[in-house]
């Protein structure tokens, strides 16, 4: 039962539980089409959650995430109609700007909270320059990329699995990933790895920036158009997804599966009222309650012990367990 002690169990359990509840009320979602439609909207949020998770693993927080996705969305809906190279150029410029934001944070050891908050207005400004009013058109190849499917398996599931796996690999099995987590946990350890914190911070924002670009692609494909303000709701949802999934504001740990599962769970919560006809005024209180429950369940390790360790004496003395160190996310 060791897996119950993982900090991402709560997110996966919540996602599965909510899926079960929705399936029992609306069996229609158990079809391939139903699953596809249900999970489609969660893909951009999953990308946002992973990007936020990377930044939080390094001990920072990105308050500009919503505006950044809006900017990528605006670029995708406009630049690619002119030419692919204009689009690529603008996206590269965005990633460079995003890395620059990381440089500003590291160079002066400024609080990420404030710097990213300021940058959120810069991204929004650029987005409004590129696309002053909602409009534009998603390039056909982008829409097709995200609706490609293997028969029987809805594409969103594939995307979510690949995303979780890829981000897990990057953060747990590469040197850069380990350095990023160390940066969030113990800066000294980074120097012991013979790496410069500045370069690690830049690499961290580069990775997050690339994930945001992919997230922007999925958002553009899903909405088939552009809106500079369309990314705003992803900011707080991404933070919530990361925290539900086991992440920490203190940094040093990363739970990619948890972040993706948290995004899925939050996506289900948004659709709750379609099924239960809950009064709109009550709905948001319920969503908040669910978030608190999910956070409470994060300490499922304790619940697991309580359920499965039989003798009272064992429990009270404290059955020794091989704990999981903060830096290890596996």
């Amino acid at each position, binding site marked *: 039962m060791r897996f119950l002690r993982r900090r991402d169990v709560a997110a996966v359990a919540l996602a599965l539980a909510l899926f079960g509840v929705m399936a029992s009320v609306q069996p229609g979602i158990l079809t391939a089409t139903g699953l596809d*439609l249900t999970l489609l909207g969660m893909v951009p949020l999953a990308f946002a959650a992973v990007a936020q998770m990377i930044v939080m693993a390094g001990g920072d927080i990105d308050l500009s995430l919503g505006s950044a996705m809006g900017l990528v969305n605006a670029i995708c809906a406009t630049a690619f109609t002119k030419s692919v190279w204009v689009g690529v150029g603008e996206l590269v410029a965005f990633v460079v700007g995003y890395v620059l934001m990381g440089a500003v944070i590291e160079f002066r050891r400024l609080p990420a909270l404030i710097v990213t908050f300021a940058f959120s207005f810069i991204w929004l400004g650029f987005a409004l320059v590129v696309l*002053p009013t909602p409009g534009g058109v998603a390039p056909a190849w982008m829409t097709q990329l995200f609706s490609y499917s293997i028969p029987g398996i809805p594409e969103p599931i594939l995307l979510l699995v690949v995303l979780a796996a890829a981000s897990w690999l990057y953060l747990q099995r590469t040197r850069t990933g380990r350095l990023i987590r160390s940066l969030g946990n113990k800066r000294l350890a980074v120097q012991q790895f013979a790496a410069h914190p500045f370069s690690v911070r830049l690499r961290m924002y580069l990775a997050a920036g690339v994930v945001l670009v992919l997230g922007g692609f999925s958002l553009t494909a899903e909405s088939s158009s552009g809106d500079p303000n*369309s990314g705003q709701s992803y900011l707080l949802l991404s933070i919530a997804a990361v925290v539900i999934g086991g992440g920490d504001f203190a940094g040093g740990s990363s739970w990619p599966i948890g972040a993706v599962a948290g995004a899925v769970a939050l996506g289900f919560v948004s659709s709750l009222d379609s099924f239960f006809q809950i009064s709109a*005024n*009550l709905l948001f209180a319920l969503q908040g309650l669910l978030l608190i429950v999910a956070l*409470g369940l994060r300490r499922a390790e304790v619940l697991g012990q309580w359920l499965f360790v039989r003798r009272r004496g064992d429990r009270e003395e404290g*059955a020794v367990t091989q704990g999981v160190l903060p830096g290890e996310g596996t």
Partner: protein
Amino acid sequence: MVAHMTKAKRHQILMVLAAVTLVSGAIAWASGAARPGSAAAAQSGFKIAYANSEIGNTFHQALVSAVQATEKVALKSGLVSKFTLTDANNSPTTQAAQIRQDVVAGYNAIIVDASSATALNGAIQTACSHGIIVVAVNENVTAPCAYNVSPHWPDDTKVQMEYFAQRFHGHANILNVRGVAGTLPDTQMGVTGVNDVTKQSPGLKIVGSVYGQWTQTIAEQVTSTILPSLPTVNAVVTQGGDGVGVYNAFKAAGRPIPQIVFGNRGDELRLWQSILKTDPGYDSFSISTWPGGISSFGIWATVALLKKVVDIKPSYIYFPLSEITTGTLAAWIKVTPPSGVATRSFTYAAAVAVLKKEPNIPIVATAGPTGPISGL
């Protein structure tokens, strides 16, 4: 890290379990309490889903209460057998997910009050490809397969500017108070409608432009900020929800009060009435749209389209703007709470009558809270 079961941890688990029970209970109670008229459901009626954007401001509160009132009438009449209202807290992500769920659940029509003119297009396209009629109310969407029921927003400000042109004989300094940047209604009112008239009457000078965001407090703040840099302002073109804020800003700055056009909000109408008491010659009017009118008209239009009573292809179905004059002011104040918006709703018969006249309906209608609507 050694985990051990202390009393504190045990309490924590009990709290979590209590919370889960509470939440499940709350969901069960809330869904039981809010399920409307399913007992009266007729087998032959249509199933309609209403995807609302937000309920956090007075305009939308009025819209939603009209939806709920119209829903009761529709369910009782048997025209509609199932009606669901969802709210997205102004998040396009959430709203798109809710629309997709409505497709999965098999509704005949989806009415959308869009939180974004474009971000819902993917979900709307999906709905259309499943044969569902999609009607956008209040906020336009750019999806080509959707019907757009909306006032002709550019005319809201066009009427104001034309009035200024006439009153000031073509020469005036005008402050342009806009809404929320990047939204379609703001562009339609603050740019298209205004520029349509300044092109014809170049003597009307826009001396300043601020984003009041349809909120009195923000409008007051941004107006106060820009006022010191402005010459004499003769008139203010507004988008609604900002008149009181603009007036307060001018008053606080000690400037003469310009001609401000109001936006049918309860607080603005009362302010106008109090200005008239001290200055009976204050020449103004109020223009916006009836939130209850939009939603009730939208629902009845959807029913009419489902019943194929009218044959209209997806396009704009325009809805008159509503103007309040000094003549109808007192009557409107009586039925509009200070935090509300002047509104009245359509009946099915009245809505069908308007639909049959499309597209030749008047742009602006003047009416009291009851009685005939001029031009319709």
